């Protein structure tokens, strides 16, 4: 399985990269980690005529916590490796869900090259990191030659391997708000083998109020639709409840509401709905438990 021919561009700064993307439009693909793109190209499922390698663009590999006037923000640049995120103390502290989800992604050598942003931009509906971003209320920072904009995760994933990026636009970073007090998170999945894409995965965050009730929750599913989706009916069922077993069970029962999973050889649509319910319950139990604890354990 060998790729079709393409022109290789290795821009030295971001402006050059954006110029190249603007020039070539839909004929070009951005190459960061390449662990998804090169795989597709080898199979000729993607045959861009131009590949823009952004690995030499300075500044894109920054992983940082910024404390502006508002709550702290964790920002990962486009070439931050998945392995870096997985081992980062900042991620463990401020967005443990990202690290927990990230540990399930493929295997060490793939995570050493693959990037967090790349996985988000690839928008595989079964993948862990897009779902984690959704559960974390994250956002994507996109740049093009005409400027920069921020796209909320809720608005970013539009279909299988499709995002709301415009031609000529690339993701330069993802940002997640640092996890607040009394917030617990959990990521659980069923995969055929360790490291495989999940048949279904659930990323959940739960924030408790002072009285212990559930002040808010975000539940994101992967492998359960054409894109990572929020289980809004489950969220509604849980919010305001006491977070006890009955509330969790009711939320879990609603987790598959409105889902249109894509069935494949690893699981039918009905099986994915079933897993969505089972795993939502498990993720919520763990997240609620962690929300009650002093520190989130990853």
């Amino acid at each position, binding site marked *: *399985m*060998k*790729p*079709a*021919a*393409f*022109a*290789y561009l*290795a821009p030295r700064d971001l402006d050059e990269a954006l110029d190249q993307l603007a020039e070539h439009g839909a*004929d070009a693909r951005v*190459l960061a980690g*390449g*662990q998804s793109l*090169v*795989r597709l*190209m*080898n*199979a*000729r*499922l993607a*045959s*861009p*005529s131009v*590949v823009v*390698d952004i*690995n030499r663009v300075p500044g894109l590999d920054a992983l940082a916590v910024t404390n502006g006037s508002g709550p702290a923000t964790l920002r990962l640049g486009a070439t931050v490796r998945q392995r870096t995120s997985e081992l980062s103390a900042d991620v463990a502290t401020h967005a443990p869900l990202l690290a927990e989800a990230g540990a399930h992604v*493929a*295997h*060490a*050598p*793939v995570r*050493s*090259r693959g990037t967090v942003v790349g996985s988000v931009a690839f928008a595989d509906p079964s993948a862990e990191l897009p779902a984690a971003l959704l559960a974390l209320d994250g956002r994507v920072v996109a740049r093009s030659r005409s400027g920069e904009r921020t796209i909320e995760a809720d608005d970013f994933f539009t279909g299988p391997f499709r995002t709301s990026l415009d031609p000529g636009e690339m993701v330069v970073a993802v940002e997640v708000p640092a996890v607040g007090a009394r917030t617990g998170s959990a990521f659980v999945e069923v995969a055929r083998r*360790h*490291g495989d894409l999940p048949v279904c995965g659930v990323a959940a965050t739960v924030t408790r109020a002072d009285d212990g009730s559930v002040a808010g929750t975000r539940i994101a599913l992967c492998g359960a639709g054409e894109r990572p989706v929020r289980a809004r009916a489950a969220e509604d069922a849980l919010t305001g409840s006491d977070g006890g077993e009955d509330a969790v069970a009711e939320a879990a029962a609603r987790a598959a509401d409105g889902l249109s999973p894509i069935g494949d050889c690893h699981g039918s649509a009905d099986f994915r709905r079933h897993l969505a319910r089972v795993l939502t319950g498990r993720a919520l139990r763990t997240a609620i438990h962690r929300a009650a604890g002093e520190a989130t354990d990853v």
Partner: protein
Amino acid sequence: MSETTSTAAPEKVRVRLTVNGTSHDLLVEPRTLLADLLRGDLGLTGTHLGCEQGVCGSCTVLVDGTATRSCLVFAAQLDGATVRTVESLGGVDGSLHPIQRAFHENHGLQCGFCTPGMLMGTCELLERTTEPDPDDVREALGGNLCRCTGYQNIVKSVCAAGRALAAERNGAQV
């Protein structure tokens, strides 16, 4: 599926890289995978291709010290890089590297096709972790598939290699 519309072949890319200690200054087609550069242009056929999707791990080499799927990186990306393959292990006199010796002593291979990938993954692991335990080994090599051995002896071999290297280091310090 789109095809290149221009009839001219895309421009070759200059890549200066070091492979197993030897420096090369090459002009490569953009689409040449690192694995094919190694196996074809450089005649280093010890690195094997099993899937060309990054799933089997047979093609694993070290790029700048990091275990890398050579089927998922274009040679063109590696200007300035250092690459190590299985041929860098073992001596010209036929002596086995301690990792190779550990695999031999613990029956860690049968057909040998996945073995170079296992060995290079082990190199990185043992540079990062002293005396890994079986869980460490699975974490590092879990993406390397083997169809022959059933893995048990591979894990044993890697742990034995870890102990051997640690003993060597300790011996050197004494």
